[in-house]
C-alpha cells in the first residue's frame, strides 16, 4: 500500500513539521482553537446546567438541545458563519462554531448527572440540616461528577473534531494538512494528516478519561 508508506515518509520528513504550514504550527492552532472554545463553552454551560439540575428545572431543554445538536451539520454552521460579516474576523467564526457544538454535551450530561443523584440521599442531607449550597457542593456535585466529566470528554473530542472541519471553511488547524493534501492531490499527505488528527482525538479522549478518574472526588470510597 503505497499511500501508507508514503504517509509514513511524509510524517518522518522533518521539513513537513516546520514553518507556517508545518505540523507544529497547525497543531498549535488546533489546540488554541479547541482550548479557548472548550473553556468558553464550560463557562457558559456548566454553571447553567448545574444550577438547573440543582433546582430541577429545564430538563426538556437539556435533552432536546443534544438532539438538535446532532441534526445540525457542523460544516453548514462553519460555512454560514464564515460568509457572515463575522467571517472577516479570522478565527471568530471557527471559535463560535466550536463553542456552539461543545455546549450540548456539557449541558446535557451535567444536568442529567445532577438529576440522577439519588433523591433520598439529597433528602437525608437536607434532614441533617445542610443548606442548599452545602447540599449542592458536598452531595450533588460529587455524585454528579462522573457524568459531568463524561460530558466534558465528549465536548473535548467534539471540539477537536470540529476544529478539523474548520479547515474546510478555510481556517487553520490540523485539518489544513488534509485539505491541502486534497488540493495537491497528494494522497500520502492526506493520510498523514488524517493519522495526526485521529491520533490527537484519541489522545485527548484518553487524557480526559485519565484526568477524570484521577480527580474523582469519590475515588477510593465505596
Amino acid at each position: 500500500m503505497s499511500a501508507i508508506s508514503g504517509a509514513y515518509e511524509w510524517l518522518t520528513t522533518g521539513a513537513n513539521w516546520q514553518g507556517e504550514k508545518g505540523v507544529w504550527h497547525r497543531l498549535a492552532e488546533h489546540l488554541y482553537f479547541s482550548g479557548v472554545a472548550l473553556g468558553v463553552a464550560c463557562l457558559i454551560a456548566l454553571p447553567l446546567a448545574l444550577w438547573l439540575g440543582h433546582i430541577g428545572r429545564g430538563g426538556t431543554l437539556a435533552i432536546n438541545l443534544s438532539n438538535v445538536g446532532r441534526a445540525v451539520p457542523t460544516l453548514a454552521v462553519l460555512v454560514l458563519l464564515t460568509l457572515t460579516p463575522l467571517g472577516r474576523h479570522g478565527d471568530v467564526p471557527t471559535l463560535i462554531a466550536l463553542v456552539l457544538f461543545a455546549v450540548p454535551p456539557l449541558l446535557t450530561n451535567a444536568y442529567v448527572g445532577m438529576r440522577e443523584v439519588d433523591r433520598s440521599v439529597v433528602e437525608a442531607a437536607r434532614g441533617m440540616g445542610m443548606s442548599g449550597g452545602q447540599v449542592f457542593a458536598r452531595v450533588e456535585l460529587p455524585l454528579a461528577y462522573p457524568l459531568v466529566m463524561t460530558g466534558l470528554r465528549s465536548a473535548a473530542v467534539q471540539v477537536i473534531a470540529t476544529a478539523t472541519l474548520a479547515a474546510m471553511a478555510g481556517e487553520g488547524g490540523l485539518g489544513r494538512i488534509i485539505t491541502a493534501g486534497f488540493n495537491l492531490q497528494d494522497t500520502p499527505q492526506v493520510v498523514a494528516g488524517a493519522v495526526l488528527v485521529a491520533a490527537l482525538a484519541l489522545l485527548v479522549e484518553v487524557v480526559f478519561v485519565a484526568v477524570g478518574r484521577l480527580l474523582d472526588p469519590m475515588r477510593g470510597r465505596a
Partner: protein
Amino acid sequence: MSEQNCLVANDWVCGEYLRSRSQELVDATVQHVGITAASVAIGVLISLPLALLARRRRAFAGPVLGVTTVFYSIPSLAMFSLLLPLFGLSVTLVITGLVLYSLTILVRNILAGLQAVPEEATEAARGMGYGPLRLLWEVELPLALPALLAGVRIATVSTVALTTVGAIVDYGGLGTLILDGLDSDFKAQVLTASVLCVVLAILADLLLLGVQRWLTPWTRVAAGRASRGTRIRKAAGAAEARETPEKVA
C-alpha cells in the same frame, strides 16, 4: 426583474436561485438521502449480528464496544481521509465511514434492548418449546425493537449531518453545495442547502418515529395504562441522552 437581482446582490434568501437551480438541489438531496439510507441500512445489517454475538459471549462484547467507540472518536474529515487509500474518491468511501460511525450507536442500543428483555418472557417461550431462532425472532427482537429503533433514529439524524463532510471527496450531497457555495461566496446556495439538511434530518426522524409507533403499538398501550406515563418517557429520554455519545462533526 427584482428577483433576478437577488442573485446579483448575493442575498441569503433568493427565489430565483430556487427556480433556476432546482435540478441541482434535487440531485444533491437525492444523493444525500441515498448515502444516508444506504449507510444506516448497512449499519443495521452489520450491528445486529455484532450485538447478538456480544450478548452471547462476554469476551466478545468488550472488544466490539471498544473498537466501535474508537471509530467514533475519529473526526469525520480524518475518517474519510484515512479510507481514501482503500476506496479512492468514491461514494463507497463516504458510506463506509458513515457505517463505521453508525455501528457505535446501533450496537449499543440493540444490545441494551436485548439485555432488557425480561427473563420471564424468554423462560416462558422456552417452556412453550420455542427454539433459539424462533425465540429470537418472535420474542426477543420484538421486545428489543423500541431500543433498536431509537438507535436507528439517532444514527439517522447524525448521519444526515455527517454526510455533508463527504463534500471533501465530492460525495457529500447537500454538503457539496455548501462547500461550493463557500468557494464561490454564493450565500443563497449555502443557506438553502444548510436548511435542507436540517429539514431532511427532522423529516427522517419523524418518519422513523412513525415507523416505530406503527411497529410497536404495545408500547403506547403500556404507557397509557401507567398513570406516570409521561414521567417514564422522560426518564427514558434522560437515559437515552446519557447512554448515547455525541457525534456532530
